[in-house]
């Protein structure tokens, strides 16, 4: 696996604020890497440093093996899609897409051909002569994508590309971006705060907090095994409790099962390795499921509040104040490293 880009000990400070703190990261060639985290975690700053819009206060950035830390953006050969799309309002769609090719002195005929080819790739060839303002948000987004791809960049950088789209379109565009990546073979770096987006789209995901990497790896490796509480919380592991030895366990609401009535004190733990007795504090109706809040005591004797996602008939017999028994599905309990 060769690297398309590398961060080596990169830091970015704005005054007293450290946006990115000693970041070392390898972006694998031909894969889609997401930088994921809450706002202020340094993901966009990292992307901007990679694109050359912001110079790191320390460290080295390499693109295709070459030290690019001090290279201005126009000489990095990267394609960037901005959250606001940043289309040129005074140019047609075709001229927007052809802008980078014109700068590269691609001859007129060849340029026209490549512009149309790229617009076809994003399904917008019929709008080539329009001005961006006449286009819908989703179409503008595709133009921005086409403009970045047309120059055949070394890397395609996407800064929260889907966050300005409505929910339905957003889900469609996830698959669309993956399709385009597969067809072009581009290395993609995508910044997002949406874990579902990252899980669905990434080959590799990098979870960040306060300018540091919290965990990285393919979604299928990261999701079932969060490395720490932050990652677990960010990925939707709502419940944290301690086992008999005081080690931290976490479990997702949909992996807890709730049954009416208290189990015997000496009843064995279920296949999930968990058996807690408690009372229902609250039941929230959510249409397809119920979110049941249970106050219980974990094996160290500490009070824990558990969120349990209950579907269909399993909710029978549950009511606020009622005694319940909570157990976990097999393999659902995750122990966090100390």
């Amino acid at each position: 696996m060769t690297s398309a880009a590398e961060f080596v000990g990169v830091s970015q400070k704005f005054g007293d604020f450290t946006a990115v703190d000693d970041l070392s990261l390898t972006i694998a060639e031909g894969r889609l890497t997401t930088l994921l985290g809450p706002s202020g975690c340094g993901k966009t700053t990292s992307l901007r440093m990679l694109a050359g819009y912001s110079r790191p206060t320390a460290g080295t950035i390499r693109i295709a093996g070459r030290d690019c830390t001090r290279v201005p953006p126009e000489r990095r050969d990267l394609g960037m899609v901005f959250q606001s799309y940043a289309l040129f309002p005074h140019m047609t769609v075709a001229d927007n897409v052809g802008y980078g090719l014109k700068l590269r002195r691609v001859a007129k005929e060849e340029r026209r051909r490549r512009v149309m080819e790229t617009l076809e790739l994003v399904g917008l060839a019929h709008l080539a002569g329009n001005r961006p303002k006449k286009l819908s948000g989703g179409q503008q987004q595709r133009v921005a994508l086409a403009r970045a791809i047309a120059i055949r960049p070394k890397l395609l950088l996407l800064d929260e590309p889907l966050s300005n789209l409505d929910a339905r379109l957003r889900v469609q565009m996830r698959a669309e971006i993956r399709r385009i990546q597969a067809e072009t073979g581009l290395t993609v770096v995508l910044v997002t705060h949406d874990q579902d987006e990252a899980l669905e789209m990434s080959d590799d995901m990098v979870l960040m907090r306060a300018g540091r990497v919290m965990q990285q790896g393919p979604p299928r490796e990261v999701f079932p095994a969060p490395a720490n509480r932050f990652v677990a919380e960010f990925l939707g592991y709502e419940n944290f409790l301690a086992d008999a030895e005081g080690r931290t366990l976490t479990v997702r609401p949909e992996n807890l099962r709730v049954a009416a009535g208290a189990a015997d004190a000496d009843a064995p733990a279920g296949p999930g390795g968990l058996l807690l007795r408690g009372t229902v504090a609250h039941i929230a109706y959510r249409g397809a499921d119920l979110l049941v809040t249970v106050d219980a005591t974990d094996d160290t004797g500490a009070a824990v509040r558990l969120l349990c996602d209950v579907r269909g008939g399993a909710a029978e017999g549950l009511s606020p104040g009622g005694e319940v028994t909570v157990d976990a599905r097999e393999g659902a309990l995750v122990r966090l490293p100390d």
Partner: protein
Amino acid sequence: MNTRRPVAAALAVAGYVVMLVPILFVVVTAFTAGSTLRFPPEGLSTRWFEEALGYEPFLTALVSSLQLAALATALALLIGVPVAVAIHRGRIPGKGLVEGLFLSPLIVPELVVGLALYQQLMIGFGLDSLTALTLGHTALMIPYAVRVTGASLALADPHVEEAARGLGASPLRTFATVTLPLLRPGIFSAALLSFVTSFNNVPLSLLLQTREFRTLPVTMLDYVQQSYDPMVAAMATLILAGTVVLAVLAERTVGFAKIFGGINR
């Protein structure tokens, strides 16, 4: 007009009446055949237009005014546009202060500016009237240039220039192919506003005039003080016509919404 809001509609009508009716009186009076400035006009003729166009002091002053307005506008844009770009796109410390400095001529009374320039430039440095007036008008027009061109930049997506850089454009190329086109309607409207404001200015021109160099409004003011014939109304009507032509041209080429909104979207 929106008939569902009668009060607003009535106020709007009242506003138009107050603004337009006096102008209408001047225009109608200009076509009189009589020899005094009064309404209703006595008979109908274009004799006062002929008189005005043949009146040497008006023609000389018109040329002076146009010359002055063109010079001041060009200078104001030359200074104001880079300042606007620096304020909205640059990384300069104390942006607020810089902007305040360049907008301040708006709040200083023009008579004070005029007097100061008269003392310093004409008496102190012995500059001629055109130079002093050009400097004075330029100072007055800079706020328009900074504000109006700045507005078109403030409304544009700040990432478009970065996008251009990322696609391979040098900073200079980015300015020429992206920033400047975004600024174009702003520059056009600033030029229009500056030109008209300079052309109509009286206080500065009054203080900085000389026998050799006098602007049209000042000359007309002088004329009204000496004589009460309708020639001044005819001249005013001609200026009005010129302004209307300019406005129509602006609407046809760029459009008012773009010019005064300063938006290029």
